[in-house]
């Protein structure tokens, strides 16, 4: 690791003005990183798991509230995902931003009139962190199915995911993303690499 303090001290001895300027710039970087919830050299620790997720179901909408008593940090974003299967395959993300609640409008039935069952989970994420571990309404291995009592009909389209997760909804739980960049979609086995 670069001995930042040691280097600064050396520069301060040699050129006090330059040293103070660098010291100020480095402090500014630290402050900026704190403000933005990022780490210029890597990732920030993900937030602790949310403590509770509560849902009230109505006719054609549900009210989701999240309980997050942990020490908060500015810039944290809350994300709710719902799916029609308890494994949350192809889950649909809803970015709550800084809010810890959202009224979600969901169809009670699919386009053919079949009752839809919803499973809901939530997590949160800082801009520079991975998502926190999701909390599932009812528990991970016994998720509570939510059904709406109304008559609205719609078969949801396939999820498109969020952030830097693949744009086919195949990686739910990514929130803003775990990778800083998303590669172009390609086959699992890459084309043989070419020497440059």
């Amino acid at each position, binding site marked *: 690791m670069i001995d930042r303090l040691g280097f600064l001290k050396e520069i301060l001895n040699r050129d006090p003005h330059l040293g103070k300027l660098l010291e100020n710039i480095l402090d500014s970087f630290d402050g900026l990183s704190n403000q933005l919830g990022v780490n210029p050299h890597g990732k920030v620790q993900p937030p602790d798991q949310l403590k509770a997720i509560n849902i009230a179901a109505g006719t054609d909408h549900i009210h989701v509230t999240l309980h997050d008593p942990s020490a908060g940090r500015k810039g944290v974003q809350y994300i709710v995902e719902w799916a029609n299967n308890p494994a*949350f395959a192809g889950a649909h993300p809803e970015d709550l931003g800084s809010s810890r609640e959202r009224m979600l409008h969901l169809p009670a039935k699919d386009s053919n009139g079949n009752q839809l069952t919803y499973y809901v989970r939530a997590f949160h994420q800082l801009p520079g962190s991975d998502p926190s571990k999701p909390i599932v309404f009812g528990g991970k*291995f016994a998720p509570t199915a939510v059904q709406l009592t109304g008559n609205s009909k719609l078969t949801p389209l396939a999820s498109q995911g969020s952030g830097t997760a693949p744009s086919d909804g195949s990686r739910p739980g990514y929130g803003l993303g775990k990778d800083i960049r998303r590669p172009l979609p390609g086959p699992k086995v*890459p084309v043989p690499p070419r020497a*440059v």
Partner: protein
Amino acid sequence: MNNAFGEDVGKIPLTVFGGAVTEMAPSDLPEGASPFNQDCDFLPGSVFTRGGRQSVYSLSGSQNFNYVKTFEEFAGLALFTLALDAGGTLWQEDVLNNPGVLSPIFTVIAPNTFAKSVTFSSREFIAFTDLVQGTDMPRQWDGTNLDRISQVGPGAAPGFATSSSNSKVQSIVQQSPVLFPTGAHDFISVGSGPVGLGTPFSPGNVCTLQPRTSFVRPANIVPGSNIVITGAPLLNGFNINNDPTGLTNPAYWTVTSLGPVIPTNSTSNWITFQVPFTAFFSLNNLSGINVQCTQATLTTQGQVPYLEVGNQFTLTGVTPAGWNNVFTVQTTPNAAVLQVTQTLLQNNVAQYTYVLQSGTQPTVGQSINVNGTLNGNGIFNVRNAAIISISANTFSVQIVSPNIGAAAESNATASVYGTIFLFDPAGVVTPPIIGNAGATGAIATSGVMGVGTRQAVVIFKTRNGALTPPSPFVQFNITGATSAITATNIPIGPADVVARIIAFTGAGGANFFWIPTPQTVISNGQNVTYSATIINDNISTQATFSFPDQLLLDATAIDIQGNNLFAQLELGSCRGFLTYADRLIAWGVNNKIQNLLSLSFDGGAGTQVDLTTNTSRLFPLGWTIDPTNGAGSTMLTSALFGQSFYIQNLSGVTQSLYGMITQPAYVNQLGTPIVTAATKYSCRVTLRSPTGAATGNLVVDFFSPVLNQIFGSFSIPLSSLTTSFQILSGTMLTVPFATVPKDLVIRIYAQNIPNLGDVEIDRIEPFPTLQPSFSTQFFASYAFNQEAFDGVTGLFGPAQNQQRANGGMVLFDTLYMLKESSWFSTTDNGVTEPNQWNWKTVSDTVGTIGIHSYDYGEAWAVSACRAGLYLFEGGEPIKISQEIQTVWDLINWKVGHTIWVRNDSATKTIKIGVPIPTPNKYMPEMPANANPTSPNVVLSMSYRELNTGAMLAATAPIRSSYSGRLLSPEPARKWSFWNIAAPCGENIDRGNNSKMLFLGSGYGNSKIFQLSMTQLSDDGSAINSFYLTHGMPKPEIAAAHNVDVLRSQFDYMQLLVAGSGNLQVFVFPEDPQNIPYTLDSPPLSAITQGDTEVTVNVKGQRHYIRVGTNAVGSTWSLSTIIAAFSEDPWAPVRGTAVGAV
């Protein structure tokens, strides 16, 4: 006349003995500089014989040593020296426990190989190279195994079948109704809640059964349970009886809360549920009211594997018929989860010591699953094995195997599937009270696993913890009845494989996951253990898995950035390794077609009957035995690594095409091109002929069966092979495809192989002819995953030029790439893989010439390139060898890649092994070697008292005084040229907190040398060590000492010199190239007895004094010369136009 006295005699002292400065004419050198010197070392104020070469080990042989390196394990608790001789034997010395003894650890490295390695995580990662390109496969040494670094994955996927679990129904029982007590204090109330003695506080829709007298609440009632109430009268006009049809009232109530005794009210065991009306009353003394729990207990005649809490099952054929439906298991009372703490196998009986974690004790005859044991290479992991005996804390099953000793288990579990299942028909069937059932009907699992299409692959896990690339995938369908997936024909890997991993996609999903350890989760308050998807052995070929997708999709993904096994490549031979950001980084990696299967035949073996011999034989998975010409092949354990493909003709006659195997070469399973158009291909083949076939060929070709055409082939005459493996390469496809035939296959076969002829192939590596290696790039592993090389995100390097990357170093937390004559830097950004790190240019002109031509100091580095030796402190590289540029230019740069550079921080010496033709102007007495191809001279630069990189860079041996006159300062960089032939040099840890420079012998005597000041010979030969002064006297010095600046007479000199043997003293008049005057050879003593006096009596303008020794047992150390000069008494000027000595 010798006259050292008198007013006319100037006595000129010389106390500065600088290093060689060859760039200047000798006559121009300032006082203290040396035109050249040989085999000298320096201290401030003195020059002396360098340490002699001393053999460290006692090996007999005739090899050179091309590599020596310290290998430190376990934070220094184990310390080894590794060495590689040119014959291909890798040696090891146990420095702490058996120093001075080299023992062979592997004897079949490709001959004439060098190595560049790095220690990382208590393993040595070694690149084998001829210094220009990778040669043999890269390997890792952990003190026990010398394994390949990364390897191919399984060549074929297992087969997968789904199964459902079923049994016969023994009984289904619902609890009997319980009569609500009748009494003055036994209330039924409706209001806002249960508070108050039968008196709700406010109106509401909460009905409370609130008895005070003794009331046995129906068993198993918990919040969320369902109950049915019958027999209640209308209460204030309201009906709380359930309607079995569910029409006028719900068919059941769902309990919302239960209560103990309410303080001050003596009321206990109350039950609340919501009713569809709002009221405000309480009534007591009610009679005839029954409360019945709807929950049912299903008892099956046998265990139902994989039916766990939360799983669904289907009942059929049960009477009453209302049970014939799909229900969900709420609890499994007699299923058990056990922690296995020890395993033992004796007389084909495996005994497990366990601790019951949940459920009931297992019983004899029950089937049991065991996961996560490690003893016996995982043989104790069984599925549905019948328990044959039980004791207090052990159970036993039958396993046919040799005895295996007892071993503790730390992460093993066992699960016993139940025969009793509690479930609730309420909400599924109406009415929910169905009536008890006897032994009628059957149960089958339903929806235990997520329904839909899945894919699966298999992965090898090696003893080093590495995961290989996955096999091709298999797709199959999970139906509602599926309770488990059984994998069959699971490939068995080579000997270093310790486990196989099955990765699955979720139902209907596209991403692969695997479960590393058995997972125990709490479901409905009960522990449920799901199996891992790893088979902890390399033996079994079948395994069964059952898991919910919630668990799978939360397990380890294998196709994400940073852990994409599908993009992982088997690392080719390479030129070197370094570590940075917890990654292993290789450079100069050989290229090959990566999406052909099992090119090294390490992807597992299949079995097929050889139709000609009617015997079973092995074939490499991923390849297909040609039905016509495929006879005569099998697989062997390779002497190099893993397995090999072997063709032997035992047919009795010569075979024109024999042992043929093929695999598609057009596209792979995912449609990714394999062989591409407009590309020429060549092939490397590692092979041998164990019996030495005299005729025939081994052929690798591209062939189209439809067109019946060979498009290109690489043919190797078997007569050119030996019984040892060798790596041969040649062109394979010289005319590129315009369009690749869709049926193109790559074939391997023997051609015209004689009877009893054979050939063994360890690996083939077809590669694009014009791109044989990733010569300009680094290839990084994933972080903390040293064998995982991602062919997309791991290849990285600056795009500025096409120079070869010759090396890499880490300084200031920055990764540097050193090319031939350029230098770049990058840093880990902490969030992306290396291909997205940014490169910056350090220098466009300075780089490094070879893989060993750079080294580190304290916060600086030095690098040798064509232009010179450069010091790097983080800014612009600074040249520190200008003073010997004329020597530098003499180096045989055709083999400049053989140069090595080593810095010894303890003695503050930089040593550079160089190939340089000798003798030459500056090394006139070195052995004749007109065209050295390996370092035959060591350029030694002493920088004592130069305590920083900046001082080293700034303190040249020549500098200008304030008056402009040149001076040779002290301290300064001091060069000497050492007569040592050493293909390699390395600072080796000797385990006593010191490092010694070890030099691989270049004398063909299987020795490794260290330099010792007490060794007064070079391994028994004389060290011809001498120092040559500048031309004395310099005119300005002469003038200052009252010596005529014209022609002078060198009368006499005194030397402060110590040593042993006899000092050889010469004076070279006018120029070091002239024939010297040989002076007396005074004896040397170890402790000076006063200056040694030597008569000279030589006339001239300048006199170069040479002192030294050249005999076994001799050494010298010189710190002062006082030279006495006077005016030439006969001819101060000679009056000639041309000088003559």
